[in-house]
């Protein structure tokens, strides 16, 4: 009986530790190009933070504001014209979309686009709370990504 408890405790600890390992990884080497799955980017706090930095630097707010949308659609809700999974967001950024979303494939590296996609995922709080970024050291446009309510299940819209 006590052995079962010990095993349970050990596996909880192990999973907590593994989670920490993944969250805190700072991988400075560029991965080989064309990595099919960018899933791990949305479990890595450093990548999400870099994505946020790039979101500001590339002036994505110019069309998307800080997630609330403007000329471009909102990014913090659960409606995704082209799909809200990270691979789909990556595709949207990489290739651009009709009606004004520029293609970034020649403007940013793949790794950077994955990072931005991971950050965009955090806007609707699809990321774990401990991975999503905290508030900016700047004027506030809304709650920090880690404190937002998780947007409900993604509702795919039909592309225009």
């Amino acid at each position, binding site marked *: 009986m006590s052995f079962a408890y010990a095993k349970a405790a050990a596996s909880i600890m192990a999973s907590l*530790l593994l989670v*920490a*390992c993944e*969250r*805190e*990884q*700072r991988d*400075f080497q560029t991965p080989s190009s064309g990595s099919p799955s960018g899933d791990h980017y949305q479990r890595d*706090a*450093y990548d999400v*933070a870099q994505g946020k930095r790039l979101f500001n630097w590339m002036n994505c707010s110019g069309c998307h504001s800080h997630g609330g949308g403007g000329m471009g659609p909102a990014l913090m809700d659960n409606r995704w014209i082209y799909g809200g999974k990270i691979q789909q967001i990556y595709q949207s950024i990489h290739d651009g979309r009709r009606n004004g979303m520029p293609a970034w494939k020649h403007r940013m590296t793949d790794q950077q686009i994955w990072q931005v996609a991971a950050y965009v995922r955090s806007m609707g709080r699809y990321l774990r*709370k*401990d991975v999503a*970024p*905290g*508030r*900016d*050291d*700047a*004027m*506030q446009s809304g*709650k*920090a990504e*880690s*404190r937002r309510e998780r947007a409900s299940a993604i509702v795919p819209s039909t592309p225009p």
Partner: protein
Amino acid sequence: MTKCASEIRDTALDDGALSARLAHIWGTPKTFWGFMTTVDHKEIGRRYIVTALFFLLLGGLAAVVMRLQLGSPDNKLVGPDLYNQLFTMHGSTMMFLFAVPIMETIAVYLVPLMIGTRNVAFPRLNAFSYWVYLFGGLMLWAAFFVNTGPDAGWFSYVPLAGPQYGIGKRSDFWAQMITYTELSGLAVAVEIIVTVFKMRAPGMTLDRIPLFVWAALVTAFMILFAMPAVMVSSTMLILDRLVGTHFFNWAEGGDSLLWQHLFWFFGHPEVYFIFIPATGIVSAIIPAFTRRRMFGYVALVLSLIGTGFLAFGLWVHHMFVTGLPRLGESFFTASSMAVAIPSGIQIFCWIATLWDGKLRLRTPLLFVFGFIVNFVIGGLSGVMVASVPIDTQVHDTYFVVAHFHYVLIGGAVFPLLGGIYYWFPKFYGRMLNERLGRWNFWLAMIGFNLAFFPMHILGLMGMPRRVYTYPAEMGWGGLNLLSTVGASIFVLSFLVLVLNIIRSLRSGEIAGDNPWDAGTLEWAATSPPEPQNFSRIPVVTDREPLWQNPETLPVIGGMHADRREILVSTLVEATPEVLESSPQATIWPFIAAMVTSVTLLASIFTPWAIVWGALPVGIALTGWFWPGGEKEDES
């Protein structure tokens, strides 16, 4: 006093019977349960010291890796991310997990013995503080081992440690570790103050208190006033990071400088938490090894108190280059210089005592000499950095690194090592080997100076702090290599110490009660002390009671011999006031520490943990304070 039929007083028993009885009443069974429930200050003190030395080892290993990385230019042993974690862990461990706790805990062990009482004032709080400290330290190092060690420096400036640039959970672990260690430190400070004020042996008036006890008392008061500042600032940091407050957000009305003010308001006094008890150790060693009463007792006490007050007026000297108004900064130059005066008085009084002394040049005194030589270098480089204009050149360079290592290692670790050689016989009943002690001293002296003196020059040559590497063309390689070699020798000296301790524990020369023929009360107890410390509480009529009464000490009678009991005395004159029960062993402090620790750990991830955790903490505290079990409640 009402006399119940069944009670037994110590006047009814002879020494042998009394001693056996009290040892049974106060003793800790050598079982696991005994270990977990003990409230004996000596048990807790010893494990506290061992834990602090363990953290010294971990922090020291971090430093060894840093020195190996810096030993040659453009080195690739360690990358920037790991290096940043290493120097942050080194600083945080040394300051929060080693230096302050070990000074507090030496006091926890020795103060009751030195003032002639049987335990500290709040024994269960003492146990609680140890467990909280242990959990906090383990949490921080566990975080480091899963790549979540803090990486923003031991003083964690914002915005680098803030929500935007302090990525992940690393700085949260740092900030919460502060909460654990400050909770633990405040608890011990409260115990020491009350113990020293209210539990002294009859006749030990305020001017007969040993200087070590004065140092512990002044430190405890400083802790009381300074630690809340860092608890507040670390809580604000966690709130900024977790909940999105704006304490340090300049764009929404906050300020990064607020962090620096709050942190350094604590941070400067903190270095005195480390230094002042060390001066207490020096003041304990010198009379024993010069066979003289300390010269200038009153001046020394006033210096301790003066340093304690002045230390609170210096903190802006850590912020001289932040762009604060120069007039204000200049005030802090004056106050930072002024704090050298009480330290100077202490040194003059010590040398005056040594001057006519009948010196016994044994290891503890060697370390005192090493302390004076090294600490004065550190103090003088401190006078230099206290000057605003000089600081504009040397701030945040290796010059400052050299300065604070000279005052912390020279000014605190050397006395600590001397104290270890001095009190080891009391703790364990065996002497440390004198020859190994000399090796220990000389290796430490040479290694330390080789490691840290070149850093003064490196700082002036332009080498900033906290750099994981440097280019070869700067010409810093030679001195860095020298420093690394010195550090290795310094590490070697600690290995000699460990060897000495292990050998002595096995087969060291048996020490008697008072192998040094010192004068203070702890040497009247056996070596190691019996669980009750003193079977009969001594009466004191002199600063050095054992020198005044070398054969037998006068004692007081009439205490109960069938319960844990301590004597409460008045604050100034130490006339006996009340007989007070002292708590039995109990598991509640451990439970309370556990639930507090889990609550604090969980609150790194969600603020709701405070709410959920309040219930178990409340239950634990209720169990702890549930009345009953004291004989005086029943009579």
